């Protein structure tokens, strides 16, 4: 006779942990795994990338953190909504980017992510990974990569280095 061990109990995943945050009266979600830190607005340095064109208008600050420069995205400009008062900064994990938001709502788990309906055909296809249902609400789940693309990061870094070199020469 052989006694077989019962199947190893698998860890139950109820869903993907998300951080809910508010920008301009809308609640958004971002995967908690994509956020390295939530902090206040101290330590922000102004950035003036106007000469780089309107696409870079959303980058208004930089943040020095652990010897690394983060480009800070104004979420209102990114999502094309009217300005509101920011109180929190989401520092992203996978890129040298941080996002200015109005407030952090709470953490939650999202069981399933619905695809964005195909009727949405604009920039939102890049902004969102999909839509989540939270009770009776529909919450867009942001795609963190849309805040700072690799190309934007390279251009901004080069502009910053140029600015620093100019400052050194002038000094």
């Amino acid at each position, binding site marked *: 006779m052989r006694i077989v061990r019962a199947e190893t109990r698998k860890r139950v995943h109820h869903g993907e942990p998300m951080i809910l945050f508010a920008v301009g009266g809308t609640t958004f979600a971002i995967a908690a795994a994509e956020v390295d830190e939530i902090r206040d607005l101290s330590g922000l340095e102004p950035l003036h990338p106007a000469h780089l064109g309107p696409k870079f208008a959303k980058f208004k600050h930089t943040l020095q953190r652990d010897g690394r420069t983060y480009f800070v995205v104004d979420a209102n400009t990114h999502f094309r909504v009217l300005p509101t008062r920011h109180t929190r900064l989401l520092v992203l994990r996978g890129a040298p980017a941080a996002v200015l938001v109005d407030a952090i709502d709470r953490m939650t788990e999202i069981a399933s992510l619905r695809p964005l309906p195909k009727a949405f055909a604009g920039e*939102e296809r890049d902004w969102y990974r999909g839509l989540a249902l939270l009770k009776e609400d529909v919450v867009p789940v942001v795609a963190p990569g849309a805040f700072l693309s690799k190309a934007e990061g390279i251009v901004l870094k080069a502009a910053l280095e140029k600015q620093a070199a100019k400052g050194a020469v002038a000094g």
Partner: protein
Amino acid sequence: MTRTFKGEPSFVLFPLGKKRFALPAGVVTELARPDRLRSFPHTTRMLAGVLLRRGQIVPVCDIAPVLVGEDAAPRKFFLIANRYFGNTREWTAIPVSGECELASTELLPVTGKLPRYVIGLLSLADEIVQVLDLGLLHAAEATA
């Protein structure tokens, strides 16, 4: 196009302000009662947000400003229609001003200069109703 037993095609007539428009009955799935519109930032023209309908997320497409102008009467109901993206079918909710009506009548060809999204005309007792193609309407607005 849906046809009645008499062989005439059917259309769903819907009001937008003082005017009525029509969709082929085959693309319409239901007339829904007012529901809470959920909106979030996007850049797609005519989209007003989404509805939750039987567990599905349904985009809401407000076509009234294009068809009757910005002063369209308040929309009270949602006409839910199918929209095709290649082989994929998706529901679209269209806010309308009042009750809808089913009509079976001949589809007359377009006369005069009308937008491409008007695919035909219905001659009713005291009005001429434009029959719309939702896909062409969206395409026209996207390139406007």
